[in-house]
């Protein structure tokens, strides 16, 4: 089963999506609409988002591309809900920058609270998987708590969704093709098999430091093949058997409107 949050017919709804793409609300109402309909507004799929843990340099090939040694332990940074947006929504490119890139990532959504979770028990604490695009503004990197908040905590720069897939419906999360398309052209093509620290490892690692709670998320990093984004671009991040996440890039002025 897949789970999502949408606005449809003026209502904010929690929905389940079955293998035949039939949409049912959590109240049992069947919605007469298809998944690709423009009548659906997709919200970030985690209803009450908690702490978002994101991984840097978690694919050996991407670590090489960025001229760093692969880390000996996870490079984790934290994000919050201000960064989240949904499928088919907009993310913005800040003014006067040289390089903003996408990062297609597998996300594990925590479903149960736990601390000191052992690797072999980790999947009992994961509700499911989704996809995010963890945009970065490389111009803003500084060597203090890197990647710093100015790079990674901006409004709208963490699209996620469209849905969460139950863990039991994903046979092997460590062997999924991961691709990104920009304006219809594949620019990133990797596999979760190249992940350095996988989800069970990360659940164990983080829960040795702190309690993980339902609604927390772990964005597991991205492989090589990042490219610059410009207003007008459409970027689609896809992970096999999970979902495809589409984002439209707009200018800072267009995004903030009256607040610009």
């Amino acid at each position, binding site marked *: 089963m897949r789970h999502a949050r949408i606005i449809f017919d003026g209502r904010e709804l929690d929905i389940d999506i079955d293998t035949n793409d039939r949409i049912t609300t959590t109240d049992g109402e069947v919605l007469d609409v298809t998944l690709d309909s423009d009548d659906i507004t997709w919200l970030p799929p985690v209803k009450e988002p908690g702490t978002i843990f994101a991984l840097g340099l978690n694919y050996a090939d991407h670590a090489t591309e960025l001229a760093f040694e692969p880390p000996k332990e996870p490079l984790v*940074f934290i994000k919050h809900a*201000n960064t989240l947006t949904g499928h088919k929504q907009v993310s913005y490119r800040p003014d006067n920058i040289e390089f903003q890139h996408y990062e297609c990532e597998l996300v594990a959504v925590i479903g149960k609270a736990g601390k000191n979770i052992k690797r072999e028990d980790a999947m009992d604490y994961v509700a499911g998987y989704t996809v995010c695009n963890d945009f970065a503004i490389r111009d803003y990197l500084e*060597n203090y*708590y890197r990647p710093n908040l*100015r790079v990674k*905590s901006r409004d709208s720069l963490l699209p996620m969704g469209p849905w969460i897939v139950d863990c039991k419906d994903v046979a092997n999360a460590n062997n999924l093709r991961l691709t990104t398309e920009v304006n219809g052209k594949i620019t990133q093509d990797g596999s979760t098999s190249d992940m350095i620290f996988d989800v069970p490892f990360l659940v164990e690692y983080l829960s040795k*430091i*702190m309690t993980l*709670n339902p609604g927390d998320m772990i964005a597991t990093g991205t492989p090589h093949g990042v490219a610059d984004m410009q207003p007008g671009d459409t970027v689609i991040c896809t992970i096999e058997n999970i979902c495809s996440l589409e984002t439209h890039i707009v200018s800072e002025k267009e995004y903030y409107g009256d607040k610009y």
Partner: protein
Amino acid sequence: MTANTLVHSKLVCVALNDKSQLAALEGTFNEAPYKKPPTQPVLYYKPRNTWSLDGAEVEWAKDFEGNDVRAMAVGASLGVVIGRETCRVSQAEALDYVRGYTIVSDFSLPEENYFRPDIKGKCLDTSAPVGPEVVPADTIANPNALTVTIRVNDEQKSAFALADMQRSVAELISTISWIMTLQPGEIIAVGFAGDRVPVTRGDRVEATIEGVGTLSNTLGGA
């Protein structure tokens, strides 16, 4: 978990905002891995598992082998409580978005390095008590004129005049609001004395700001 706190959704902390600390570390910050001193506020989050209240016990942290860590430290800051949505505001108007002030104690492993996000040091459960209350913004004429003191077991260990901050409260609110839209109830811990105070198991830690109150917590593990 989120009910047991004065914080709503986000606690942003500002590191390296003590002028004397920045001056003392200038040589270090011109070398690898930093290469040059920070040009922007150095920010970190205390996530929701860290949030706690006045009077609460702060857990003594464990290392990755499950043993008690050897050392912990505390810093204390003025906590600026956001009153309404704060998006891309100027310094001149920034204080208009403040609902009130409180105190944030940041318990952590000793700060040794600022290069990578300090998840292991800063994200410990119960390590961010906030309180004892939120005093209304209009009771504090100038937040940059306050002094934050830390007493451990009734002995004063630290006094930090916010006049010695590299960046003022208004400047920080403005700069942060251009990175992320802040929401009512979110809190910014604007600056800590550069020298964090070492603490040990069972210590009673009181962080005080005149006009804001005293935030009292006890270290566990005794």
